[in-house]
Every structure is written in C-alpha cells, then in structure tokens.
C-alpha cells in the first residue's frame, strides 16, 4: 500500500510501523488508520511496534490527528512504542494509545501548549499515571524527561537503543499464544470500565473461551514436556 508518511515492515509475526515524519498531520493519521485496518485482517501479524525517528512525534493537526490515534488505540493485539527524542502534544497522545512504551534516555514528554481536549489526552493520561500528575502535565505544561516518565508510569523502560529493546520484547511476545495475548489485553482494558465483580466475570469468560483453542493444548503440553511451545494462533 503506497504509504508516504509511514513505513510498514512485517516479519516474524511483528508489524513494525515507522513514522517517517515527526508531525501527525491529516495524511499520516489516514495512513495510520489504513495501516491498522491492514494489520487487523492480517493473520500473520501478532504484535505491533510503533517507532518514531529522531523524534517520536512532537505534535499534530488538531482534530485531523484523532482518527490515527484511535486506530492505534483500538488494535486488539499488543502494541509497543519505541520512543526517541520528543513525544509532545498529540504525539504523546499517540503513544498513550499503545500498551507498552520504551524510550531513549534523552526522550522528552509533555504538553507544552494547552491543547484542545483531543486524542484521548484527558482520558488515557489520568488512567495511566494518576490524576495528580495528569493535571500537572496537561495544565502546567512542563516537559518531563525519561527518568521522571519512568517513575510516574508513563513509560515502561529506558533503553539506550529503544528500537532494539522494543523489537526484542516484540519477538518474545510473538512466541506467545496470540489469542491469549489479545484476550488478556481485552480483559484489562474492558475490565477497567467495569466493577470488579463484572470484570472477574469477563476474565473468566475469556478464559473459558480459550479452552476451545489448539494453542491452549499446545501451551500446556509443551510446558509439561519441558519444550518451547509452538503456537499457531488457532
């Protein structure tokens, strides 16, 4: 598919989406949306990596960006972000739509301009880092470094070469049962909108659904036979 602002590479169950520009304009948002559609129907893709260049992404074009961010956030498979340089404004909103974030030591995060409430910033940020820090980041606009981002739970890890570490993690995830990964992600996100009791029902139902998969049998057998499981996504 002739993407201009992003590049997709698929290998070993991993789709790596590289952002070719540090600004989330209308075109990039539409291409991210198309890419997510493509990934969604590709049975060979089990894990997604979203990587920036020198800068991850330092802003976007208001409402135009929204659809790209939501497309990433709505992927049902694990999405890992590799972040170097700046992740600001709607660029930060874009990485909030991912599940796990790995950043370089010199990365920076924040909302330097008071943004229109867009791209999920008023909803995903407080759910991720708590409301005290979210208010501070959104209202005061201070830019924080990787060390602080790690402390407040905004990112998961700091790495000198974030892309390499992110791809290592993606490869480990691609060894796991893909349906289990998707349902685990669903249980967490959907469960947070429910009461604990309802969430426990959801978790149990998704667990019983996995009883019908071949991968469950393979996973348990491989463990008991002390060998590496070979999952097929069935």
């Amino acid at each position, binding site marked *: 598919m002739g993407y201009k602002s992003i590049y997709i590479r698929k290998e070993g169950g991993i789709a790596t989406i590289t952002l070719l520009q540090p600004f989330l304009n209308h075109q990039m948002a539409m291409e991210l949306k198309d890419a997510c559609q493509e990934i969604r129907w590709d049975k060979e893709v089990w894990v997604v990596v979203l990587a920036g260049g020198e800068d991850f992404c330092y802003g976007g074009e208001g409402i135009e960006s929204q659809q790209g961010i939501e497309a990433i956030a709505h992927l049902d498979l694990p999405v890992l972000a590799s972040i170097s340089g700046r992740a600001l404004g709607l660029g930060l909103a874009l990485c909030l739509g991912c599940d796990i974030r790995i950043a370089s030591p010199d990365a920076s995060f924040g909302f330097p301009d008071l943004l229109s409430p867009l791209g999920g910033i008023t909803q995903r940020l407080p759910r*991720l880092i708590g409301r005290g820090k979210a208010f501070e980041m959104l209202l005061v606009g201070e830019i924080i470094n990787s060390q602080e981002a790690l402390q407040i739970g905004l990112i*998961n890890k700091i790495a000198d070469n974030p892309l390499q570490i992110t791809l290592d993690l993606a490869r480990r995830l691609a060894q796991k049962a893909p349906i289990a990964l998707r349902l685990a992600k669903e249980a967490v996100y959907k469960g947070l909108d429910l009461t604990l009791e309802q969430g426990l029902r959801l978790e149990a139902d998704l667990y*019983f659904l996995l009883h019908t998969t071949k*991968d*469950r049998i393979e996973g*348990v057998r491989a463990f*008991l036979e002390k060998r590496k499981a070979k999952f097929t996504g069935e």
Partner: protein
Amino acid sequence: MNGFETIIYQKKEGIAIVSLNRPHVLNAYNLKMRDELYQVLEAIRDDPDIEVAIFKGEGKSFCAGADLTEFLTAPSPIIAREVRWERDVWGLFLSLPQPLIAALHGYVLGSGVEIALCCDIRIASEDARFGLPETGLGIIPAAGATQNLPRTIKLGWALQILLSGDFFPAEEAYKIGLINKIVPREKLLQVSEEIALKIKSRPSHLVRKIKELIRRGLDVSLEQGLELEWRSWSI
C-alpha cells in the same frame, strides 16, 4: 480445623495463618488445594475471633502457579464455567471482611500472584520472584489478575507484566507498588505477624468497615462512595 492435605491452617490469638503446603511442587495450586482453600476461607469469614489473616507458603516458594498436570484433561468450556461459579473461591477470597496479609517468598507466579492480589497487604522477602506466565501457555490468568493487577498498580506496568510474562524480582515489585515492603527472608513471617498484630490492636469493627468501604468505593462514583462512607456512620 485441620486434617488438610494441601494447606496448614493455624489460629493464634485472633490471627489466622494459612500455609500453602505442597512444597515438593513449589505449592502448585491444584483442585485439592482449591477445595481446601475454599473451606479455609469460609472458616475465616465465619469465625468472629479472627481479626486478620496471613497467607504464606511452606518450603522454598510461596506458589509457583497452577498445577498444569491437571490441565491436560480440560472439560468443555461450558462445564468448566459451571464448576467455576458453583464454587467461586476467588469471589469468596475477595469478600472476606478481615484484612489479609500475603507473606511472599521464592516463586510467586500465576495463581501465586493472584492469591497475593486477593490480599490487602503484600510483604515479600528479597528472594521473591514474580510473574504471570499464562500467555506463554496459551491461556490468560483466571483468578482475577487481569482485574486486580491494573487496580493495584499502574496500567502500563500491569500490561507489561500480563503480556510479556517476564519474571521480575522483589525490588522491582516494590518500585511499581505491587508489594508494600521487602524484608530479609528470615524476617518475613515475623514482620508479617507484627503488621497483623498492629491491625489487631485497632478496633475490629472499624478495621472491617474501612476495608469494606475501600473495596466497595473503588467500584462506584466518588459521590456514591462518599455516600457509602457517610452512611456507615449513621447505622
């Protein structure tokens, strides 16, 4: 109350101590343990003398997860689901009115983490190692981890732990807020008992009320939660 095969249940001066006792298999959680745990939890719930309970593991580890040898003969999803809700050990665990303390050491994996998450306070020794390996086995946790973990620690950490299945040491568990305290291995039980004694020294009806209000409050809007808190006074 004794004569269990997989659990040692002790009670002294208002404190219940529940020890998972299958040390030869690192206290792997099996059907027998489920049935016995259910009885023990009911006994704790219904015993007005017990003000606080400690959960620990015999031998080298707290609990290395579910006993997978029982997983090969999986019943149909419908049967499994019926069995699960007929005897809802995890719902019972989370509904106990007393504060529960988990004393964790060695491997704390899968169901081990889930038991710890059903407790209110988690103390671990330096040698403890944590992890949720389920997705590498073709399954997801089914004793509450997908719900209790993101309600206990920050969402980003919870997703990483659940999706990656990576093991991590006590130090990291402390940093992300999964455990309340790290202690030397030989002090684990002592520190847990000290905490239990402190809780016990406080008025039991208030301790229970606070646990209930925190747990119920997290499921409702702030306004409804404040209403619950206010009403708890007027009764």
